[in-house]
């Protein structure tokens, strides 16, 4: 290996690479100037699968199952967005029971997925702590911190929730219950009883989780300062789904965009998304960057003039005026009481996620208790000629659009998918660029910095599987400092569990 001093004068570059040789995920490329200061940091997504292309010619009714294969982590989100797109495509409304079963399953999924991220992916950063030794900064470290029985509690909770999804949707990974105008089968009284039982546990569990978060984060001044620090603050627009009273909703409603100052900038039906959202392509990434159409693409800038906006938990809370369930509403008020509204602090996403976890659990319980849920009428057969439909849900990681056009036989002729990480892509790039500029230089590369960059990134729980319609999941990273011949000067790895190691 070439020595650092020998090449110190040379122009350098840092590649933060999520080990593409392994997973082919996202990739960060930092260009340094002559003095070794960061000149530009690129966030690249190196893969593309073309679901939108090979969707063409497929029967519309197969889309909920085909598109769920975009991501095995959040298949239910794609399945549901797709199913809702089919309702519109075939111009048919599901019967009340079917609508409720869908939202029940969806809420169950939100509880399960947010749990996964809180304990397995994001957790290590703040429960174990950013400064803790890398070896501990993983799920095992989390369990060590919160206790083994809690660890088992988490595992058991996930299992129960996922079994419920199978019960109603056939399968958990890649469900099969969504049909235009309804769901494949009604819930029996026994099924509903199980849902009620687990829902009650889920609410408790959510409150428990909230307790954990408040104990280890809110009471930790250092951590709160980090959350508030400018390094992790971007004043952008936010988008999220809201119900009739502008309250948070994951399954259905209008989309609401609030400006950096918090005022409602737009409120629209999913079908009109193309009038509000545009996609911008860069030559150095397969991922397209969403922005607000009216404001146009101003580059990676924040502020009211830039079209850059964010989605995901923090954005959702910013975009909503409240939450429909009591316990979550109370947590919502506390959240903005502390951070002010709108909250621009990227790391607050973790807190917002816990509040959403609580809401999802409460909503799950409401629906499980609803007597209509076992009504056998769960199908309305489509009669209209299929044409075009847009379906939207709030996926765990943010707003998810499925937009289909079909011929008269319901064979897909055009398919457009916009996933959470695409909405967030610009904001993520900015976060990385900002973190890099603030922290990195040729002579100054260490775990701490790396994990800082990491955290800006991870707060979004970005799913590049969805983003590229190709690969899922969490974000292992590799940072290498090389000279311009590509000789590695320094190399640090960070894996999906949060462990960071210098090679």
């Amino acid at each position, binding site marked *: 290996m070439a020595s650092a001093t020998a090449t110190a004068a040379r122009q350098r*570059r840092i590649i933060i690479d999520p*080990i*593409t*040789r*392994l*997973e*082919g995920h996202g990739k960060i*490329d930092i260009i340094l100037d002559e003095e070794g200061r960061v000149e530009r940091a690129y966030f690249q997504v*190196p*893969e*593309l*699968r*073309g679901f*939108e*292309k*090979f969707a063409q*010619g497929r*029967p519309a*009714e*197969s889309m909920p199952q*085909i598109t769920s*294969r975009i991501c*095995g*982590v959040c*298949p239910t989100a794609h399945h549901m967005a797709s199913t809702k797109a089919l309702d519109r495509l075939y111009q048919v409304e599901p019967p009340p029971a079917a609508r409720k079963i869908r939202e029940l399953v969806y809420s169950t999924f939100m509880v399960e997925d947010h749990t996964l991220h809180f304990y397995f992916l994001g957790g290590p950063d703040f429960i174990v702590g950013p400064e803790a030794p890398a*070896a501990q900064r993983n*799920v095992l470290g989390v369990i060590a911190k919160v206790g083994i029985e809690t660890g*088992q509690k988490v595992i*058991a909770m*996930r*299992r129960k929730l996922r079994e419920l999804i*199978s019960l109603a949707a*056939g399968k*958990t*990974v*890649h469900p*099969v*219950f969504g*049909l*235009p*105008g309804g769901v494949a*089968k009604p819930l029996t009284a026994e099924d509903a009883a199980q849902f009620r039982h687990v829902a009650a546990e889920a609410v408790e569990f959510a409150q428990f989780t909230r307790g954990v978060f408040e104990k280890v984060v809110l009471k930790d001044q250092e951590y709160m300062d980090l959350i508030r620090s400018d390094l992790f603050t971007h004043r952008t627009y936010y988008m999220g789904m809201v119900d009739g009273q502008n309250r948070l909703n994951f399954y259905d409603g209008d989309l609401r965009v609030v400006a950096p100052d918090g005022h409602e900038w737009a409120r629209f039906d999913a079908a009109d998304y193309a009038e509000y959202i545009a996609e*911008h*392509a*860069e030559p*150095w990434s397969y991922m*397209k960057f969403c922005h607000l159409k009216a404001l146009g693409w101003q580059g990676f800038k924040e502020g009211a003039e830039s079209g850059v906006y964010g989605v995901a938990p923090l954005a959702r809370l910013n975009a909503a005026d409240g939450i429909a369930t009591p316990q979550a509403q109370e947590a919502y008020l506390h959240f903005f009481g502390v951070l002010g509204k709108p909250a621009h602090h990227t790391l607050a996403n973790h807190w917002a996620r816990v509040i959403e976890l609580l809401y999802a659990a409460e909503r799950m319980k409401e629906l499980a208790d609803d007597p209509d849920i076992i009504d056998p009428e769960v*199908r309305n*057969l*489509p009669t209209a000629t299929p044409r075009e439909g847009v379906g939207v849900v709030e996926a765990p990681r943010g707003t998810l659009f499925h937009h289909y056009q079909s011929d008269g036989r*319901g*064979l897909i002729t055009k398919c457009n998918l916009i996933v959470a990480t695409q909405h967030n892509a610009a904001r993520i790039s900015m976060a990385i660029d900002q973190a890099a500029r603030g922290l990195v230089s040729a002579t100054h590369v260490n775990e701490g910095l790396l994990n800082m960059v990491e955290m800006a990134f991870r707060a979004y729980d970005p799913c590049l599987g969805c983003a590229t319609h*190709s*690969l*899922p999941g969490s974000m*292992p990273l590799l940072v290498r400092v090389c000279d311009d011949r590509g000789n590695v000067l320094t190399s640090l*790895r960070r*894996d999906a*569990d949060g*462990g960071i190691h210098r090679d």
Partner: protein
Amino acid sequence: MKPKVAFYWCASCGGCEEAILDLAEDILNVVSAVDIVFWPVALDFKEKDVEAMADGAIEVALVNGAIRSAHQLQMAQLVRRKSRILVAFGACAQLGGIPGLANLTTTGEILHEVYGDGTRPQLEFQHDGQALNLPKLFESVYPLDRMIPVDYYVPGCPPSPRIVADALRVLLSDPLPDPGSVLAPDRALCDECPRKDSHDPELKIDRYYRVQERVLDTGTCILAQGVPCLGPATRAGCGARCISGNMPCTGCFGPSGRVRDYGGKALCSLASIISGNDAGAIDPILDGLADPVGTFYRYSLPSSFLQRKQGE
């Protein structure tokens, strides 16, 4: 000393990883029974650790996902070299999977679909003298065994928890099954279908319904109700999950042992049982199968005889 086990993913959606996590409490038993030396998504071991191992040092490697880029091929070859037993885990690795439907099109067509004539990602982008690279994608998606030798297959999209547990047990015990075998029953799904006794032996289809065209009775054979169900052509082992969801089998477990081209066989069978002895009577029935390729090759196009769309 505990056997070394590795999990690795190529072009997959992560559902197979979830399938392993869905062992839930059992995962702890697995972890205690073996020595997991490589699991990028969950544990902290690196490629170079793998490179450092002696060839064949890994007892069992479970690889999910298809091959669609040179990187994935490289890694698959590395893992192959280091492993005594390599298992294609899940539909994508075994058959190509749903992303394999990309073989109906080309990378060029995909790029055009997504980016139109505007800015396009470049394999190499220059930032004053610094090249940013994006990996080249193959024109086709390939199942694992078209690229590297595969010892066993675990079917499913994703494999059901039961299949995963059984597979791990079998692979870690003696004697091993015949090389090349699929670690699931060599029988079709009907064998374990709760509705298998719900219809009489005269299976005759006068009309194929698309699934949204008909409210399915929850107790009767779905195929007998006229909705194309691929259960008869599909390997058992999933526990008829989709059927219990009152939806037809779409074939994610792939063919049984004596079938070489899943889609061809399934098509042959579903066409045989319709009524109608002339084109005029036959064609309207077939209209219920709106998308033959997407129906019969939903998971297996890259492993079919034709592999991809022909011509250019």
